[in-house]
């Protein structure tokens, strides 16, 4: 049996590990389509042949749920992530992220690289965090918004922007940037990656894969990428 998984592109590395492992274990076949969460959600709305959707964006999952496109009861939160403040250079001086943070001082003439602050989750969370810390208004004029987190990271990595706000998972792997602070969890809505089975596509393989995602092998793969796996009541272990 075949399972088609639509997954946010940021999960590529993890999915590249999980899918073959699942296939080996169960004999099912997994096809993973990686793209932006919004594109995937739209495709699902237009009848894409997806069995499972892992979104990096809660809002899109909510939309699908409202439209009745999810298999009832199949939605759960799979992963948690955090956003961090990064600076260019391998060993930048850490700062304390608090309302007292002197962002303009740190930025100087430079830019604060973020993902699109009204459209892309990482940007939305970053904006919310800065707002709750009372830093947004001073930061706003210096914010440079990229179309995704990876592009924001690249801006800092190349030194184009001295600072940036990205996911912890992205920051970890780049030698040209250092994490100089993590935004407090309560400064923004929880960053979760919801997963769900799609309505009308329920099948044994899909159910099995869903379970596998919550299982220990998958957990290892996700954690290796820096994600925090949200424990499921009643799932796997």
């Amino acid at each position, binding site marked *: 049996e075949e399972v*088609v998984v*639509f997954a946010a*592109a*940021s*999960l*590529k*590395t993890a999915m590249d590990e999980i899918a073959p492992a699942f296939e080996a274990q169960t004999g099912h076949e997994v*096809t*993973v*389509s*990686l*793209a*932006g969460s919004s*594109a*995937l959600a*739209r*495709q699902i709305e*237009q*009848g*894409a*042949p997806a069995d499972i959707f892992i979104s990096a964006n809660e809002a899109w999952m909510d939309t699908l749920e409202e439209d009745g496109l999810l298999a009832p009861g199949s939605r759960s939160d799979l992963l948690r992530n955090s956003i961090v403040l990064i600076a260019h250079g391998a060993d930048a001086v850490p700062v304390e992220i608090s309302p007292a943070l002197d962002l303009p001082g740190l930025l100087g003439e430079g830019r604060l690289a973020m993902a699109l602050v009204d459209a892309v989750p990482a940007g939305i969370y970053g904006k919310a965090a800065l707002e709750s810390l009372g830093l947004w208004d001073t930061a706003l004029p210096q914010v440079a918004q990229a179309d*995704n987190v*990876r592009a924001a990271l690249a801006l800092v990595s190349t030194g184009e922007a001295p600072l940036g706000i990205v996911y912890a*998972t*992205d920051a*970890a*792997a*780049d030698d040209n940037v250092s994490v100089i602070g993590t935004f407090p969890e309560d400064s923004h809505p929880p960053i979760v990656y919801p997963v769900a089975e799609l309505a009308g596509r329920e099948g044994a393989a899909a159910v099995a894969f869903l379970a596998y995602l919550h299982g220990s092998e998958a957990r290892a793969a996700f954690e290796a*990428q820096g994600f925090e796996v949200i424990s499921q009541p009643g799932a796997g272990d």
Partner: protein
Amino acid sequence: MEWLGPEEWQAVRLSLRVSFWATLSGLPPALLAAYALARWRFPGKQLLNGLVHLPLILPPVVTGYLLLLTFGTRGPIGSVLQEIGLVFAFRWTGAALAAGIMAFPLLVRAMRLSLEAVDPKLEQAAATLGASRLWVFVTVTLPLILPGIIAGAVLGFAKAMGEFGATITFVSNIPGQTQTLPSAIYAFLQVPGGEHAALRLVAVSVAVAMSALLLSEWLARRAQRRVSGT
């Protein structure tokens, strides 16, 4: 090449297939559109002209979105075509459609430019020798615009090889079905540490496109030599 995994090979093959068919099946309608724009007068000509350019003007994501809305399984055209067994949604055919549409304005412009450079006196001469409109086109116009067709095809093929936004928005990124080289490159770029893998694919993409380019140059030189008549 050992350093390409089987899935990546698949992407290379798929990209070639998609670009080839996108270009090839784009040529006849592009030729028709170019001919209409260059030679005919009809109401709505500027509308057609605008429509042809649309994929260039719109951000690719929008084009992809519009394709999804119209050619998707639930779209007005997609659902009809599905009846006759022509499915674009989430198939390589859809990738070819998207690439073809994105390449279309480039095909049309190159051909139109060549068409406008054809000396109408030669076509008239052919008519006096008994060739009907269609035959004039086939025996005189077409050979004379061959360089333009080749130029258009090259541009179109290159564009199709690089097309990403519309494709991934329309048919997603399904390995073996719709995962072209650019989609694969994009996916690599979305994860930490994927840059090297992405660059490898970029290199493959460039190599393939360059070969096509060299071939086209050679063809174009031959065609040009024919046309300049020496």
